């Protein structure tokens, strides 16, 4: 887990790059610099969702209890993902106010991110409603998997329902990045550093969960 410490170096680099090195965009001016925070945050939110889904699948298929506390780890991942997604939504809607004139206009990306938020909210409400039910882990994991299954349907529908205002440089049909060289490098560095940050936070939370579990266990032995 040494590589996760790299976040302490990479994060300042990406901040400096995004303000000093990357040029400002043509029409948007300096507001375009939000991209180096907005895109990595959204990416982090999706990544956290995928990771907690994978943890849930592992938890349910893990009959011999090879891994410990996977449902708690999946919950931790979802917590971080929720924060990342909220931040992406806030930065995105501020940016949208600056460039399109309104905070919210049901753009496909805004729609999909709000669906992601809804799933997170539902998962957390289910988690807290289950209390110390002995099936907590299994029901919550089953719900997360169930919700993940519907996501491909959203990918299929949303672009048909709502026309997009998002600039194509990032997501387009040719799957290419239409950005200047400096911008592209900076964006890559920012995405890498936020990914590292996500894994670092997840690692910390998981270790705390494990310590908490053992401390309880030891206390009960007495």
């Amino acid at each position, binding site marked *: 887990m040494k590589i996760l410490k790299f976040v302490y170096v990479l994060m300042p680099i990406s901040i400096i790059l995004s303000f000093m090195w990357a040029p400002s965009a043509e*029409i948007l001016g300096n507001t375009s610099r939000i991209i180096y925070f907005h895109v990595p945050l959204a990416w982090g939110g999706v990544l956290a969702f995928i990771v907690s889904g994978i943890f849930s699948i592992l938890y349910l298929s893990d009959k011999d209890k090879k891994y410990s506390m996977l449902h708690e780890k999946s919950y931790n991942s979802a917590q971080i993902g929720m924060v990342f997604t909220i931040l992406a939504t806030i930065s995105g809607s501020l940016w949208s106010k600056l460039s399109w004139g309104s905070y919210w206009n049901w753009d496909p990306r805004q729609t999909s991110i709000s669906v992601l938020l809804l799933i997170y909210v539902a998962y957390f409400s289910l988690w807290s409603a289950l209390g110390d039910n002995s099936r907590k882990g299994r029901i919550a994991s089953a719900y997360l998997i169930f919700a993940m299954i519907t996501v491909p349907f959203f990918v299929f529908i949303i672009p048909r329902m709502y026309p997009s205002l998002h600039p194509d440089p990032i997501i387009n049909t040719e799957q290419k990045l239409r950005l200047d060289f400096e911008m592209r490098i900076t964006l890559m560095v920012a995405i890498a550093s936020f990914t590292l940050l996500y894994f670092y*936070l997840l690692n*910390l939370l998981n270790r705390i969960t494990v310590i908490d579990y053992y401390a309880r266990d*030891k206390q009960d032995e007495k």
Partner: protein
Amino acid sequence: MIIMPGINKMKNRLKVSIFFLVTIAFLIIPIIKFSSTGLQHGQFLKNDGETHSSRYMLNAEEKPQGLKSLPSERESVKKAQDTGRDESSILLSVMAVVLAVWIGLAVFLIKINLKIVKLEKEINEL
């Protein structure tokens, strides 16, 4: 066992520190707003030179009155320009703020990491 209360405190602190990230997002954007050369009215993001048509797309003619950027904002941009503040200096100060926020977060995380390492050792010894 003495560990217990410490752990709960730490858990909460870590959660708080994650929310601390909010400050990054909140701080950058409004400040950038002042420094930006900004859009003119009716100028919108174009994609391959084509304007998107959608019921939400706001063209210069269609743009409703209520959605014009507030005059106070415009003035403040002007003010910022009038007082001679260089755009790059504003950019620098924004960057300084963001870096400061990050440093605060980093210090927080390092502290918590050290604590976790200590507790892990304690648990292994038991």
